[in-house]
């Protein structure tokens, strides 16, 4: 009940559920596109997706300010790399929200003479740069964790035990690769928040890459990745310990 309340009483929780539903509708539409018996269901799913999309755009009005404040906070971080990655990500997110707000104003008729395509492309570019900044931060955090682990004496013993246990062909040929993978997996196992954030950002990449034509994929792939990232977003909202900090 408490979890349900957490979702219903705060817009961020509702927004994540709506995002997941939106991508679920898009995925279902893609999977049912060839099915001629379900035209009514298809049109219902499309209408629902469009309504959720339009509603979420209104939700996002004013998020530019929130992102600018987050960017100001991240400027004060002591770690220079983290400071750079996060500030760049937040600034780009603020620009993305601004483009999104302009697109909303155009869709309701508040602004007339604007080039929808150029603003949409701008929004996708800003979103892509946000994701690149976030992924750079994830990679940096993983590398830091690996360096920390490698220095740990207890872990070194574990590594030696692992390398001696399995004398397989691949391991003999590329011992460094096996050691690297072992170090990577052990570091990631101890910090699930980093794993979740990396997977989320990676899944989110497909949407702007497809829209900008850099890596075209079909709407099914984009919807599936969007759904996975939305579900991860819901998990981190329900369990804040799984959310990466800062």
């Amino acid at each position, binding site marked *: 009940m408490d979890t349900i309340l957490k*979702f219903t009483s705060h817009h961020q929780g509702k927004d994540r559920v709506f995002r997941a539903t939106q991508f679920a509708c898009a995925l279902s539409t893609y999977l049912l596109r060839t099915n001629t018996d379900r035209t009514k269901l298809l049109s219902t799913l499309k209408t629902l997706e469009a309504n959720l999309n339009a509603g979420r755009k209104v939700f996002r009005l004013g998020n530019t300010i929130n992102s600018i404040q987050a960017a100001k906070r991240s400027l004060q971080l002591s770690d220079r790399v983290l400071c750079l990655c996060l500030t760049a990500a937040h600034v780009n997110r603020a620009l993305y929200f601004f483009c999104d707000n302009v697109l909303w104003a155009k869709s309701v008729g508040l602004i007339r003479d604007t080039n929808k395509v150029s603003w949409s492309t701008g929004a996708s570019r800003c979103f892509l740069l946000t994701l690149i900044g976030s992924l750079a931060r994830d990679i940096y955090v993983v590398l830091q964790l690996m360096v920390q682990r490698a220095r740990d004496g207890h872990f070194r013993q574990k590594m030696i035990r692992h390398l001696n246990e399995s004398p397989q062909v691949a391991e003999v040929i590329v011992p460094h690769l096996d050691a690297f993978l072992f170090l990577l997996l052990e570091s990631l196992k101890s910090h699930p928040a980093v794993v979740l954030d990396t997977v989320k950002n990676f899944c989110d990449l497909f949407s702007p890459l497809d829209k900008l034509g850099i890596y075209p994929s079909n709407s099914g792939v984009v919807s599936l990745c969007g759904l996975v990232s939305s579900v991860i977003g819901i998990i981190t909202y329900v369990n804040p310990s799984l959310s990466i900090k800062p």
Partner: protein
Amino acid sequence: MDAWVRFSAQSQAKERVFRTAQYACTLLGYTLQKSGASTELRKTVSHLEAHMSLTRKLMRLGNSVEALEAAKRAIHLSDSVLRLCLTLGHLNKAMYFACDNVLWAGKTGLVSKLDQHKWSQRSFRYYLFALILNLTRDVYELRLLMESEARYRASKSPPSSSGSLPDEHLSSASAPGAVALPIVSFWLRRQLHLLVTVLYNNPPLLLDLLKNSCDIFIPLDRLGIYPTGSGFVGACGLTSSVLSILTMIHPWLKLKP
């Protein structure tokens, strides 16, 4: 900017801002119609109003749960009148949100062949009941405060000059009717003075009373009980939304419980 971040982090904050925008559009649409503005502009304003209304319906999905939780909390209040008013008020609000969610499903095409008018009337009826209960609570609190203020005044001032009419008025009057009217008007003036004092000293109660009084005209108009027109409804909705935003910015202005 910090203030906006803190404000928008509250649960109902953005919804209130959009409510303000929606009723501002209603009022604007009415003024544009009266002043004979272009149809295109009127269409844009009415389209924006409909868009805000549908988005707010989307935002309200799941609010029934919150209202039921509030009703559960209100059952434990010690004062019986408050307990009754608040519990029933929250239950009616929960029913209103449920009907509102059904209306959203109908408007977005999830539920086909929905009688929009019937469900809309139903939702406004529950909203009206909730507002009547809130106003009853306000009047009850006001009554309690006026009584305690009157007792306080009576205890402060000496008994000889305690609110009774001066004797010359009574002795100069010849007929009983001529005595009754000054007594009634004096009593009215005293009650009015008490009312103004109590409301002046209790801004949360004043704001809540004003807010509910403005809000009640909306369902009264939509249900056809007391039609006032879209201009008046827009102005009332706008006023109550602004007052509600004020109570969010300054939480001490919110009436508790």
